[in-house]
């Protein structure tokens, strides 16, 4: 189902939980809603489901306004954060609930439930009560229960929040596959960026009730529109002023206090002079600390007035704290006047051309 949301707003007392949000979602996409706690993700989801009434704005499914429809008539499936399985019903009855509402025949219901149980791989557990299942199994049942009545839109509120890290990774791959197999438009909430990036076709970053950015994970990572997004997705160095960064001397000088400079750690090359690809574009710095980060070294260098975090591949020699190194900044993002600029090191460019 194709979804469109226009100017959606919701206040709780004086708190603006959702603030003029606009977006459109294509049929069949899996969307990740990402953002800090209290940002308004759950509220957006609940308004799409009809569980919460918007103060203003429109929700359109396939171009039809659905604001007035109660949750029963929206054709959605909802997976709750803590699953909300009916605790006095068996797994079978939980999954069958939506089908009995539709007044399907007994045999139809049985077939569909078995199909769902096979899909989630819980054969043999049909008669268990929810409290006899593990967290991951409950999660799957909640998923099957939501999907059984064949909804047009699947909404998942932090589907993996209550599951331990390892099972969580398995489950999200599984969910990704399930959803693409069923081909249903889905929106899931998370505040785990790794999860969002890994699973979603597109992500939407929500902060303080506003939609900061929407796009594929790569787009959002590569071209963040706001300092918030830049800081939220992936690691980054945030500075107030690009002044004195070698290679960016002719960058615009923002005057406003709100301006920010973002440098990704992988855009910084740190090393002894002979290792640097383009020494003339580099500045000098001092290593302050070196940490092993699993797949890279994380090096903290002091360059002029700034302290920067940079990544260094493992096969290179280890740097030592106190050592003097060359620091080459390949690119940075500059945010000012509601604008975002992506700038490359100009000395490097000039130099390259000269060759």
């Amino acid at each position, binding site marked *: 189902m194709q979804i469109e949301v226009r100017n959606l707003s919701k206040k709780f007392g004086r708190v603006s939980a959702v603030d003029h949000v606009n977006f459109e979602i294509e049929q069949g996409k899996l969307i990740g809603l990402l953002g800090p706690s209290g940002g308004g993700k759950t509220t957006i989801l609940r308004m799409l*489901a*009809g*569980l919460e009434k918007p103060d203003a704005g429109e929700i359109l499914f396939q171009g039809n306004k659905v604001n007035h429809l*109660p*949750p*029963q*008539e*929206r054709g*959605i*499936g*909802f997976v*709750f954060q*803590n699953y*909300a*399985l*009916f*605790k*006095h019903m068996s797994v079978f009855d939980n999954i069958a*609930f*939506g089908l009995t*509402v*539709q007044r399907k025949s007994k045999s139809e219901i049985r077939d569909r439930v078995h199909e769902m149980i096979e899909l989630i791989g819980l054969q043999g557990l049909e008669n268990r009560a929810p409290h006899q299942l593990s967290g991951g199994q409950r999660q799957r049942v909640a998923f099957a*229960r*939501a999907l059984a*009545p064949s909804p047009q839109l699947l909404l998942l509120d932090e589907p993996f929040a209550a599951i331990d890290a390892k099972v969580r990774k398995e489950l999200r791959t599984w969910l990704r596959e399930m959803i693409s197999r069923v081909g249903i438009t889905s929106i899931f909430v998370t505040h785990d960026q790794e999860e969002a990036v890994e699973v979603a076709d597109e992500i939407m970053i929500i902060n303080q009730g506003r939609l900061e950015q929407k796009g594929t994970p790569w787009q959002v990572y590569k071209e963040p529109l706001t300092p918030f997004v830049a800081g939220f997705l992936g690691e980054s160095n945030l500075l107030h002023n690009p002044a004195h960064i070698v290679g960016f001397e002719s960058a615009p000088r923002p005057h406003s206090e709100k301006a920010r400079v973002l440098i990704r750690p992988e855009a910084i090359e740190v090393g002894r002079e002979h290792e640097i690809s383009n020494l003339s574009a580099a500045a000098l710095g001092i290593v302050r600390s070196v940490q092993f980060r699993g797949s890279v070294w994380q090096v903290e260098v002091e360059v002029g007035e700034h302290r920067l975090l940079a990544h260094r591949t493992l096969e290179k020699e280890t740097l030592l704290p106190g050592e003097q190194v060359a620091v080459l900044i390949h690119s940075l993002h500059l945010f000012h006047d509601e604008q975002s600029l992506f700038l490359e090191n100009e000395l490097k460019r000039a130099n390259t051309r000269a060759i």
Partner: protein
Amino acid sequence: MKKLNITVTYLVFLLLLIIPLGQVLSSAFSTGFSGFWSALTDPQALHAFLISGILVGAVTALNTLFGVLLAMLLVRETGISRRIRQFLNAVVDLPFAVSPIIGGLMILLLLGPHTALGAFLEDHGVKIVFALPGMILATLFVTFPLMVREVMPVLQEIGTDQEEAAYTLGAGSWRTFWRVTWPSIRWGVLYGVVLTVARALGEFGAVLVVSGNIINKTQSATTLVYQQVENFNFVAANSLAFVLAGFSIVVLMTLEWAKRRKEV
């Protein structure tokens, strides 16, 4: 210290509950089983039991229905402002603080034969005070908080998640209540029902004032006990009391059982 404390415990129970119960028993049977039996099967006693039965039935049905509905309203209805809900919530407890005798007096003052409303109703053939309807009203007043206070915490505890899940699966409010909410609250409701039955059967002060304690008309089992004591008919009083006490013990056991079910 420990020995002393345990001894006191035994003593208190013995003195306050066990010996008096034993005396009720021995006094009831002091003229043998036949005395006990004839006290119970006396037409006056039978009628009193009948009245108590009707009273308990009517009060329990009404109190359960309205108690559950009001609990749902106070916990779930977000359309009512918080202030009003707090006010209503405070009002629920008031009958706990009202002496039953005053509870009865209130109904007398509002609907008694000397009041405008009472006279009007009586002219139209509706007798409330000194009749069963008034006794039911008085007992409803006294028992009102019991059901509401049992059901409200359960509703709060189960939260709205399961109900919302049912809505998103297409279920309407009726089906959601019966298939999702009810199974969670039913032990709480049962507990409330048992409390209501016990209180309705045992209610004395309010009923005494409203009923006028008219023999073979508005006399209930408890007011009959009182009258027999006043008449120094101790065998009859104790026979009735023995039956009522036996019933209370059944109630107590049901409560223990319901409490255990409620916890799982």
